[in-house]
């Protein structure tokens, strides 16, 4: 394969940054709020006889407290049976219809995604209502789920790519809730019970603060009536316990290097990062365009230097992971153990070059064309559109973001790009996570900052 999609589990959920092609406008949609506070979005799309549902709840890992993994397990366990269906019956009914319904938690929020044939909407929407409003958190099912998760957590340590993001978030965000580990750790997951899940559910799954969006082949008028009937009985939650994500994120005072020792590693997988931006940053679009040039596409400065010119790696890239109250910037790649030092040095050199040489008119034009050209396929399907609407709710933006995107991209000039680079791309106090064989690379790791070494197989109290 030519390129690797860098899927880094455990990192902050990234919001896809839409760009606009010539005249692309978001199709018409309507939204309304039920008396209990639930926001509903509806968009008719009749090309294919399917319906997609997307729901979002303020129930992500930032609410875990000391119980890392609780939000994630609660979201998964929503499908462990409802008042009407056992887990087995529920899976059987959905599978029979070829319908998919999944529930999950990310860093900030929890969610549900579903897709089904338009003709099955009554049946599936009833099931979805049961999953969201009437989960029973069956103990026997939970015990099995937990057992599987514990093996999965152990397994992930066999794959540097699966765990590096969690280490990085902890290193960067420290005690701030954005450092919380989505899937948890063996030590925090082991003691969890269904009582914990029920408590988490009743506090955090609430119509006020949540949204449900539906896109696909239906009549908006009928769907509005159906959803009103299904979800009006959902009771408002108690007074909120407070979202700690608003607490200030302390900036690193120095460069830190976390070396995660994996004795049988042949490669070094690494992230170099720094504080990023919040999703509502007014320069969000401009930052995306500049990052496209730096590390967001195949011909980006990073991939060109680390892969194309030097053959040090199969792929190198960078991204801004933006959440409501802040985020991270990361450079990520991997290389053979013996080329660890040249690969890190090259990555740093490219970052320095961005600051010292900046970018030129041709490169800027190219990046602008690219983000605009790659935009429409991101909003082609009912699932993509229903997902977009819940993101509009969560991050508080509307269709103008999409409809004006092309204009905003075009408005970026070299002066502004220069300003973006110096303001948002880090220069120093960089944070490093290296997963590799410590015996071979510890001396190298020391070069880049204050070193801490941990074992991949062990887990410490602070998340390392």
């Amino acid at each position, binding site marked *: *394969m*030519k*390129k*690797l999609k860098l899927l880094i589990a455990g990192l902050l959920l990234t919001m896809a940054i839409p760009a606009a*092609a*010539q*005249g*692309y406008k978001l199709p018409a949609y309507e939204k309304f709020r039920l008396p209990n506070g639930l926001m509903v979005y509806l968009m008719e799309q009749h*090309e*294919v*006889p*399917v319906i997609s549902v997307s729901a979002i709840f303020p129930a992500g890992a930032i609410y875990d407290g000391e119980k890392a993994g609780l939000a994630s397990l609660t979201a998964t366990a929503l499908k462990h049976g409802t008042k009407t269906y056992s887990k*087995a019956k529920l*899976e*059987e009914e*959905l*599978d*029979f219809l*070829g319908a998919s319904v999944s529930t999950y938690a990310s860093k900030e929020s929890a969610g549900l995604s579903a*897709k*089904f*044939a338009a003709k099955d909407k009554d049946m599936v929407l009833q099931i979805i209502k049961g999953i969201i409003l009437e989960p029973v958190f069956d103990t026997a099912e939970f015990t*099995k789920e937990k057992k*599987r998760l*514990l*093996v*999965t957590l*152990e*397994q992930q340590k*066999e*794959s*540097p*790519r*699966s765990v590096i993001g969690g280490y990085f978030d902890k290193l960067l965000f420290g005690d701030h809730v954005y450092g919380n580990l989505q899937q948890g750790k063996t030590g925090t997951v082991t003691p969890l019970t269904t009582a914990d899940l029920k408590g988490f559910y009743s506090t955090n799954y609430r119509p006020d603060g949540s949204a449900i969006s539906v896109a696909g082949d239906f009549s908006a008028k009928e769907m509005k009536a159906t959803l009103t009937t299904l979800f009006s009985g959902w009771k408002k939650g108690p007074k909120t316990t407070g979202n700690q994500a608003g607490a200030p994120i302390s900036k690193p005072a120095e460069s830190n290097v976390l070396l995660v020792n994996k004795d*049988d590693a*042949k*490669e070094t997988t690494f992230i170099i990062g720094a504080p990023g931006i919040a999703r509502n940053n007014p320069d969000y679009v401009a930052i995306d365009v500049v990052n496209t040039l730096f590390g967001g596409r*195949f*011909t980006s400065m990073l991939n060109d230097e680390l892969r*194309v*010119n*030097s*053959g*040090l*790696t*199969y792929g190198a890239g960078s991204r801004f992971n933006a959440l409501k109250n802040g985020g991270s910037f990361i450079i990520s790649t*991997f*290389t*053979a153990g013996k080329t660890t030092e040249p690969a890190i040095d090259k990555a740093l050199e490219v970052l320095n070059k961005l600051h010292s040489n900046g970018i030129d008119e*041709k490169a800027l034009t*190219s990046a602008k*064309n*690219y983000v605009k*050209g*790659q935009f*429409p*396929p991101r909003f*082609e*399907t*009912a699932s993509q559109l229903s997902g977009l609407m819940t993101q509009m709710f969560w991050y508080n933006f509307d269709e103008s973001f999409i409809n004006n995107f092309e204009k905003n991209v075009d408005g970026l000039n070299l002066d502004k790009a220069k300003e973006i680079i110096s303001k948002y791309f880090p220069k120093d106090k960089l944070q490093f996570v290296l997963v590799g064989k410590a015996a071979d690379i510890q001396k190298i790791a020391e070069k880049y900052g204050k070193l801490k070494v941990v074992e991949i197989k062990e887990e410490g109290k602070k998340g390392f």
Partner: protein
Amino acid sequence: MKKILLPALLLLGLCIQAQMKSDDVKTFTLKNGMKFLVVEDFSIPNANMYLFYKVGSRNEYQGITGLSHFFEHMMFNGAKKYGPKLFDQTMEFNGGANNAYTTENVTVYTNWFPASATEVIFDLEGDRISSLSIDPKMVESERGVVLSERSTGLENSPWEQLSQTLQGTAFLEHPYHWPVIGYEDDMKNWKQADLERYFKTYYAPNNCVVVVSGGIKYDDVKRLAEKYLEPIPAQPAPPKINIVEPPQTGERRVMVQKEVATPYLMIAYHVPEARHEDYYALNILNSILTGGKSSRLYTSLVDKKQLANSIFSGYSESFDPTLFQFYAVTAKGIHENDLEKAIYTELEKIKQEGITEAELQKIKNQKLMEFYDQVETINGKSNNIGTYEVFFGDYRKMFDAPALYNKVTVADVQRVATKYFTRQNRTVGVLKSNTED
């Protein structure tokens, strides 16, 4: 890239006619034998171009293993008009993106771009297909890239190592024996002459099927194809692959050592290629066994007996007889032998008692939804049409698929389970920390 497990690719729906008709695909063949399939779709202002070359690791031999995949990489490293780096730079400047992948059977290039950039894409493709330059310096740095690709696959997933060993054991003679990525020592020794011969033989226009979908008219596609691709001369047909894997006459077992939380288990049975009449029944059987949480193996082994932490299976389209593979991770505290036996118990049940009508109907319903997924996007359309054309010999077979799936009966599913899931036809692989145990 390693063989992609894409059962969904071919699971075409049961009322496909309602969505897309055979007539919606228009075709033409250039004088040099390059065949085009075109679907006009103006729902978004974008288009794509998928180029399917009939070359993969099955066209290699020991000494040049991995060369097909490496060549996939070299196709991006410069030609006559657009030199090193310019293919990607030009495409991205014009708002386009691309990728490519190689399997045992084919090498596929995918371009996604604003419809307004279509002519640039034709120019880029025409340039590299007609006059690729294989620069020795680029060969060396790209060698590092694919070595890193190989290494990162092995580093991040135990399945990589286990499936390579298993495949090498299940196929002793046929070229499916070696991994698509190649043997490390071969990767370090590919020669310039090998690359040049490969290009001439396999990157001939008559060895390629091109699919274009999106916001562009058939007449424009034809005009651009004639301008940029028709002048490229045809070549003699590539050599036939004569090796047929002899029937397996006894169970084969392999063991691999790697530090893992719990043992990984693979079981593989020899099964026929995509054009075989049993393809549809086997495909349905695959879904019945591991498709979703109500599937036979998930329900029994993961949920009820808790012998497995996860289980899935794969059967994908191929030119030559291939493998139906099971992948299971053992649950904590369970011996992999017990998991293995429990899998056989479930397979025996199907051989003895068959499946139910309700199960069969479930899979047919699922196929319909999978079909919608495929035709909902212009990329899904190109991928499906191209795959049918290449693997089944005619894109129109895609429109016959619904009827062929509908024809499958519970008895057919029982028959193929009995025919292929036999002890002598299987290869079993285990990867675990302590192989002495």
